């Protein structure tokens, strides 16, 4: 069997590694539209920006996997797929395959700001983005980050220097809306950035090097747009297999076309934890969808049944989230000490996510508990910690 994998990020690489480990008897053509060997994205906004070492340390695949005889790397951008004929079309060539895997991931959402020159506009998603941003930092005193999610504050911590002022500008009414108010407060206590909420940017004024907003003029030698990601669904859309919301698949990562699968952040599928179909952006999603597809391709299909998890480094603090919740889910604080903070998000008695700040044990206990089934808010409160609840569930 010949598999054409489009994309070379986390999901694609996990699929490749899992297929090789599972003694896959076939060939893989991997289409990498970037000019770098497969690399890890999470460090780009964290350690890499403060210590931009050689890209070697970011490599995603070990040599024996990357150079495996069953893998052929094709450094070309795919421009179309023809599923009925098993064809992958690039700028230069056409490749015939038996299975097409869309692992096209997401890209940074852009925002056009009137008057802002392109050399002052940055996003951070790819290694090239990070390299461009890093090379533009010399002498920069005022940085404005549009967007107030994890990425914005990771960047604020990484870019912080005594001579620099970093301002995070939120469109909404609060920063870090992905997490509870309590967890956000903890994380934001430590941020070097100053935060403005409810900001609407009108334009950029080149003469004063400032963003003109509804809150007046905000100095910005450089602007980073960190307002989220958009799924790369164009290839699927062109043949009726997706919309801009994602590429729908079943629980085995198969699209309605028998020869096309979709994994990673583009895949829109049933999330058992959320009891609904959705697209999830996280490393766990990339790994778990890739593993599910690998099992099917190796002839041992098992439906996707993973609980998502996330993490983010915010300066010295580590946020880890087990599960996934809606922004409107209630919040109840479980632990709040000088060093740790654990907040449960829930719908009634059913816990949907556990947000742990510097509380790795609670995070891991929550992951293990989610594997066993739903977690009851009442039981967690009674036990005093998720770790105790896990222990009592095992005894």
């Amino acid at each position, binding site marked *: 069997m010949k598999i054409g994998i489009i994309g070379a990020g986390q999901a694609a690489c996990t699929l490749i590694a899992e297929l090789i480990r599972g003694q896959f008897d076939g060939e893989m053509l991997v289409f990498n539209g970037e000019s770098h060997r497969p690399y890890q994205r999470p460090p780009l906004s964290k350690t890499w920006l403060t210590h931009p070492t050689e890209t070697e340390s970011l490599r995603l695949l070990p040599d024996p996997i990357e150079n495996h005889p069953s893998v052929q790397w094709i450094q070309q951008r795919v421009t179309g797929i023809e599923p009925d004929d098993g064809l992958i079309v690039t700028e230069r060539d056409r490749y015939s395959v038996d299975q097409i895997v869309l692992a096209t991931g997401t890209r940074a959402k852009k925002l056009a700001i009137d008057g802002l020159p392109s050399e002052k506009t940055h996003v951070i998603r790819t290694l090239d983005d990070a390299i461009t941003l890093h090379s533009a930092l010399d002498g920069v005193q005022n940085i404005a980050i549009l967007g107030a999610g994890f990425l914005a504050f990771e960047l604020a911590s990484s870019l912080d220097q005594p001579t620099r002022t970093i301002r995070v500008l939120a469109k909404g009414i609060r920063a870090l809306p992905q997490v509870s108010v309590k967890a956000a407060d903890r994380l934001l206590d430590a941020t070097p950035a100053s935060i403005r909420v409810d900001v609407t940017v009108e334009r950029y004024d080149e003469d004063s090097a400032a963003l003109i907003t509804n809150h007046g003029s905000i100095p910005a030698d450089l602007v980073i747009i960190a307002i989220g990601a958009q799924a790369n669904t164009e290839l699927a859309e062109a043949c009726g297999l997706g919309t801009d919301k994602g590429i729908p698949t079943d629980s085995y990562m198969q699209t309605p076309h028998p020869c096309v699968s979709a994994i990673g952040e583009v895949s829109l599928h049933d999330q058992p934890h959320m009891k609904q179909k959705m697209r999830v952006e996280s490393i766990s999603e990339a790994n778990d969808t890739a593993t599910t597809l690998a099992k099917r391709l190796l002839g041992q299909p098992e439906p996707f049944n993973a609980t998502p998890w996330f993490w983010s480094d915010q300066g010295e603090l580590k946020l*880890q989230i087990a599960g996934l919740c809606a922004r409107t889910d209630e919040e109840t604080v479980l632990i709040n000490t000088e060093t740790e903070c654990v907040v449960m998000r829930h719908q009634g008695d059913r816990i949907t996510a556990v947000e742990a700040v510097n509380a790795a044990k609670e995070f891991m206990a929550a992951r293990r508990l989610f594997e066993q089934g739903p977690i009851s808010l009442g039981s967690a409160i009674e036990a005093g910690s998720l770790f105790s609840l896990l222990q009592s569930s095992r005894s």
Partner: protein
Amino acid sequence: MPQLTCIDPNEQEIDVTFEPGETILQATYRAGVDGILAECGGGCSCATCHVILDATWDGTVEGPSVQEADMLSFAIDPTPHSRLACQVELNDKHDGLTLSVAKRQY
């Protein structure tokens, strides 16, 4: 270059060279040592890069942080010499270090 010796889950012994400053994860991953998953890519967030250092190296390698120790308590069958490969930074003194990769990461 300094090197360490890894015993993978299939009892295969593999010599891995390393650059001082690298973590055990970076060195072993590059060499393709089997059995280290590192789902989170080295962020001390998944406990799937569990390795067991040879006991003779006690005291030569700085002990785990609270965060790492907490994560390790969720690894499969942790021992007093267990570590997360992503959290151990290697230096010249570690030339000759021997470690085993945990039999299972989850």
